């Protein structure tokens, strides 16, 4: 029988049982919709994480002192990173765009009657581009101010809000642990990152922080930005070499520092969110499987109910393969329609999720394709057995069936 004729016959008999056909496709609709929505949720989470990590700075690498203690028990950090280390790295390792020594501590900041314990970051001016910080107003401190241990500070937007209650903080004097600092700039709002809040801090020259405010001899870390297109693991290796020489660590001893690159963090987070996506998609595809079983169920009923029709068709010269194809077509059409409507419902649920929750979704064309072809495969797989049962019936038994 011709393809188009067969298609017409199948559609006709599906249309004749509208309600049943709809119920059969419902399982597939829900299945495909769920698969698409779940995959989109996972993908959206991945995108959100990637964006957050990227906003921290691009091509970022962070050198931190190692931690004392062993076997999982971690006490305080080594105090062994120095400005000399930073100099050596900057001069000896190729591929580094810029670098900033970083010290961090908390300090009491006071303006009039407002008094808060606030994180203070001491850094070089390169810290701003490395960490992707831009100013909302005012200016950054200068090279000269850094050299002169100037008491100037760039303030985070939340800190500014807390201290100045919406008034302009620029050119105001605040007391940090009792010392007078002048606010020269305010950072653009970045948003809470979960593990740290860049909007709640003040940034001052590292020289001022080390020599005047906290009296520190060692650095809390070194932040680096590597050049675009440079292999981060190669740079990491070279830094390790320089640091081992500087700290005189024998080759068989573990390093007393750690280097973390943004690329690595990104890879780890990506692999976590991939697992999440697969997990969600896997759970959703179970519902697609259940939908397929629903189609098989309906098709088996249909075949039994239409035994007499099968007998008539066989008496008129239908071959087993004609009957097989007719019923297979019906289940494939059911699952393809279910797949199509499922895609629409998947997109709709993605839309609803983004409207009614803070979760973001991202539908990838590949996932749509996968869900759709999976539904077609379900139609063929679960339609085959009922179709086979229909096809192999003896013509006279089918014709006599009441």
């Amino acid at each position: 029988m011709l393809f188009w004729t067969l298609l017409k016959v199948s559609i006709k008999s599906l249309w004749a049982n509208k309600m049943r056909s709809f119920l059969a496709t419902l399982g597939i609709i829900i299945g495909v919709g769920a698969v698409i929505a779940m995959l989109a949720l996972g993908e959206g989470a991945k995108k959100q994480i990637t964006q957050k990590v990227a906003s921290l700075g691009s091509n970022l690498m962070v050198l931190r002192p190692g931690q004392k203690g062993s076997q999982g028990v971690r006490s305080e950090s080594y105090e062994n990173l120095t400005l000399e280390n930073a100099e050596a790295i900057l001069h000896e390792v190729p591929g580094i765009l810029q670098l900033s020594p970083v010290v961090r501590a908390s300090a009491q900041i006071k303006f009039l009657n407002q008094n808060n314990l606030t994180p203070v970051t001491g850094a070089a001016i390169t810290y701003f581009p490395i960490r992707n910080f831009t100013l909302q107003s005012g200016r950054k401190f200068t090279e000269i101010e850094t050299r002169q241990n100037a008491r100037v500070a760039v303030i985070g937007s939340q800190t500014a809000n807390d201290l100045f209650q919406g008034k302009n903080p620029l050119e105001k004097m605040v007391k940090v642990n009792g010392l007078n600092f002048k606010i020269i700039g305010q950072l653009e709002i970045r948003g809470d990152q979960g593990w740290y809040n860049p909007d709640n801090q003040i940034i001052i020259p590292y020289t001022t922080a080390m020599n005047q405010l906290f009296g520190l001899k060692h650095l809390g870390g070194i932040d680096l930005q590597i050049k675009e297109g440079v292999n981060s693991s190669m740079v990491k290796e070279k830094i390790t070499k320089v640091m081992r020489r500087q700290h005189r660590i024998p080759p068989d001893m573990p390093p007393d520092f750690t280097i973390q690159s943004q690329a690595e963090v990104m890879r780890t987070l990506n692999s976590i969110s991939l697992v999440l996506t697969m997990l969600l998609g896997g759970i959703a595809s179970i519902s697609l499987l259940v939908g397929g079983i629903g189609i098989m169920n309906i098709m088996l009923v249909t075949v039994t109910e239409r035994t007499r029709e099968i007998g008539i068709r066989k008496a008129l010269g239908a071959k087993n393969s004609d009957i097989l194809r007719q019923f297979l077509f019906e289940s494939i059409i059911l699952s393809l329609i279910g797949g199509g409507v499922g895609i629409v419902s998947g997109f709709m649920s993605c839309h609803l999720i983004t409207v009614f929750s803070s979760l973001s979704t991202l539908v990838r064309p590949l996932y749509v394709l996968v869900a759709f072809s999976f539904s077609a495969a379900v139609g063929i797989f679960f339609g085959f057995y009922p179709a086979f049962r229909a096809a192999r019936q003896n013509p006279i038994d089918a014709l006599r069936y009441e």
Partner: protein
Amino acid sequence: MLTVKNISKRYKMGEEYVIALNQVSLSIRKSEMVAIVGASGSGKSTLMHILGCLDHPDSGQYFLEGKEISKMNKDALAKIRNNKIGFVFQSFNLLPRMSALENVELPLLYAGHPAAKGEAAAALEKVNLGSRLYHEPSQLSGGQQQRVTIARALVTNPSIILADEPTGNLDTKSNEEILKIFQKLNQDGRTVIIVTHDAEIAGKCQRQIKIRDGRIIEEI
């Protein structure tokens, strides 16, 4: 044209076997009009199903136009049902929710015929149903439905028409009409085999084969 030799068929009914046909031999020539007569349960329907390639005999041989049917595979049998034999059933066996035209088209579609629609319309025209092409079976009277069935049986131009109690469900007037159509088909050179328990119809046929308890008891 059509010969069966020593065919037997039995059915399992619960624990027991019922013998439907017992060593039946029969030969029908081309262009004959034959009635197979017998009470219900005599085996006449089983014989017709075997002649129509809808059922296999348990033993014995069946030759149709010189070819041995009993050795053919399922697809070959489907092809024979499609283009050598036209069936007319007592209960019409039309597909519901399909128009008369679509019903008559079916055998042509299974044969892969290119101009099925025109042929089907012509066949319906022949049984005087040219004005009812797009009616569904439920919208037609019994006599009209039976004429659609006849058109469907004729449409592939088969050499044999097999009718199983074709008038069983019809009134007298329709009966006569249907019988006239069969006589006309026979005059056109087709072999017509009618299974019936109606003595009047059997009397209109050239030859009567009487069956009782799975055996041929009389030939007229």
